[in-house]
């Protein structure tokens, strides 16, 4: 038969890069993902090493140095970002605020992730009645006004970090359930799942070792997006005075406290809000980037 000469220049382009090379190229070629991850990573470091980085005690009040402006508005380097209405160092409060935001975001997303994933995977895998019940619960959940319910429950149970985390964790599972249900439905029909069942693998085993690894990429994307959602909600609750309570350094609370001075000292509102915006933006960029990179066929 024909001898195919593989050195022929016409055939050189046939062998492409390996999947690993392509993934690496996509990851490092994705600006949003890179920028988002770097910013999130930096803020995570700031949160972890807050005690080392903060120039002052975030709770230390000083009536002598109330509402000092930041350096770029003529303040002193002793308080680079100025001081609040109680004389507390703004930069230190921002640094400790990163802890609050990230902790709330991470733990709330984890709790809602466990609830939503369990529901979604069960609905997608078992179908039938289980699916009907889960879909119904998702509908019910979506019909409840999140901010209102969260505010009401936090108000009843008392505003503390733990309560806010629990409330958000128990409220934000809807997207996990929706996405995990759809992903499980997609994967359930694949041959390798049928093969695992055929060799007699138990249901938990099929779910854990065949289904989960194949929907994990979607799960990670939703975790990041819901983390951002939880951080925004906590800030909104705290801003409304019904979330994390003073004197905890929460960015939402700082905006709320700065609001009263907004007329004369707009920076007190601008700075914590901007930091919040940057963190949420970075997490979203990371989430969108992860979605693009792990599922290139879904890219728009």
């Amino acid at each position, binding site marked *: *038969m*024909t001898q*195919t*000469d593989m050195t*022929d*220049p*016409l*055939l*050189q*382009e*046939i062998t492409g890069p390996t999947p690993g090379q392509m993934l690496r190229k996509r990851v490092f070629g994705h600006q949003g993902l890179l920028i988002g991850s770097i910013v999130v990573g930096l803020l995570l470091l700031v949160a972890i090493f807050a005690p080392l980085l903060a120039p002052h005690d975030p709770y230390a009040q000083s009536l002598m140095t109330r509402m000092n402006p930041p350096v770029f508005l003529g303040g002193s380097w002793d308080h680079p970002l100025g001081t609040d209405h109680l004389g507390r160092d703004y930069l230190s409060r921002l640094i400790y605020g990163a802890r609050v935001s990230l902790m709330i975001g991470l733990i709330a997303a984890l709790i809602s992730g466990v609830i939503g994933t369990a529901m979604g995977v069960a609905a997608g895998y078992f179908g039938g009645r289980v699916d009907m019940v889960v879909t119904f619960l998702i509908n019910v959940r979506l019909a409840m006004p999140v901010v209102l319910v969260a505010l009401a429950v936090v108000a009843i149970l008392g505003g503390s970090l733990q309560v806010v985390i629990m409330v958000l964790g128990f409220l934000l599972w809807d997207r996990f359930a929706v996405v995990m249900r759809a992903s499980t439905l997609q994967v359930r029909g694949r041959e390798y799942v049928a093969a695992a069942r055929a060799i007699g693998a138990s249901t938990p085993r099929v779910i854990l070792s065949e289904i989960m690894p194949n929907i994990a990429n979607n799960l990670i994307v939703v975790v990041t997006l819901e983390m951002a959602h939880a951080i925004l909600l906590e800030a909104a609750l705290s801003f409304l005075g019904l979330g994390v309570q003073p004197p905890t350094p929460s960015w939402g609370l700082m905006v709320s406290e700065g609001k009263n001075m907004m007329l004369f000292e707009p920076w007190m509102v601008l700075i914590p809000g901007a930091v919040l915006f940057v963190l949420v933006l970075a997490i979203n960029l990371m989430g969108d980037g992860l979605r693009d990179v792990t599922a290139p066929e879904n890219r728009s």
Partner: protein
Amino acid sequence: MEKPLLSVRNLTLDIPVGGGTLHAVRGIDFDLKRGETLCIVGESGSGKSLTSLALMGLLGKTIKRSADEMSFDGTDLTRANARTMRSLRGGRMAMIFQEPMTSLNPAYTIGDQLTEALLLHKPVGKEAARARAIELLEKVGITAAASRLSQYPHQLSGGLRQRVMIAMALMCEPELIIADEPTTALDVTIQAQILRLLYDLGREMNMAMILITHDLGVVARVADKVAVMYAGELVETGSATEVFNSPSHPYTRGLLRCIPLPGKTERGSTLGTIPGIVPSLIGDVAGCAFRTRCPHATPACRGDIPRHTAEGHAFRCVHPDGKRHAEEATA
């Protein structure tokens, strides 16, 4: 001699892709007269559909088109602006696509979609357009034509939808009709009906037709001219009789060997296949693209390939007769 309705010289299509240019179609030449049927045959990916879209001016924005000549009844299509192309499309040149299931807009009725082209191109009223639509639906063999007009595409079967597509293409009595694998998506029994219909209508209306297909059985029955396309080039062109009786390019012969013939192909024998790897068209493409699969390939195939022409039958190969006689001797 009658001037051809459609003339194409050196049509070339380049697609920029990550890391280079895909030379999808290279140096296509052909002429088509009124009432003639040209069949373009070739494997999928050989650039047949792209060529037809280029004629209609329907290429994606990223694809670069160049041609020495591309004229339709005296109109230079290479220089035609969007407005001119629009007035030709659907009016004087029409196209039938290969996917009847998705080629109709799900949001509008058959009637709306049938009359659209006529209302756009001709000064006719709604009633006249409706009447014409019913007439054509009957012509393409659809029963209860009047009541079909208020139906939506999803209510019709694939065969019916393709008939609707044909009727739609014929609404303005085009001079040229391009059918891009109009029957691939349909059941085999319906395929024959649709082709017959298309062929008869073409004759009846004296339309020039370009039929794109990879079904050589179809070609044998309807074609006046045949153009064989491989990896973006026309490797062999000529009258249907010439190409079928004396296939000169090794690829054409390979294709013909793939058709089972009742009585000729032995029961139980394997059908012919063309072995080898289809080349990549990214980067410079020099020489004959078929050399990676050709049983007669020589080092010379990487150089310039001469074009042999005799009485309208042309092919490109380094071997003066495409090694036809050598193959026949061993057969």
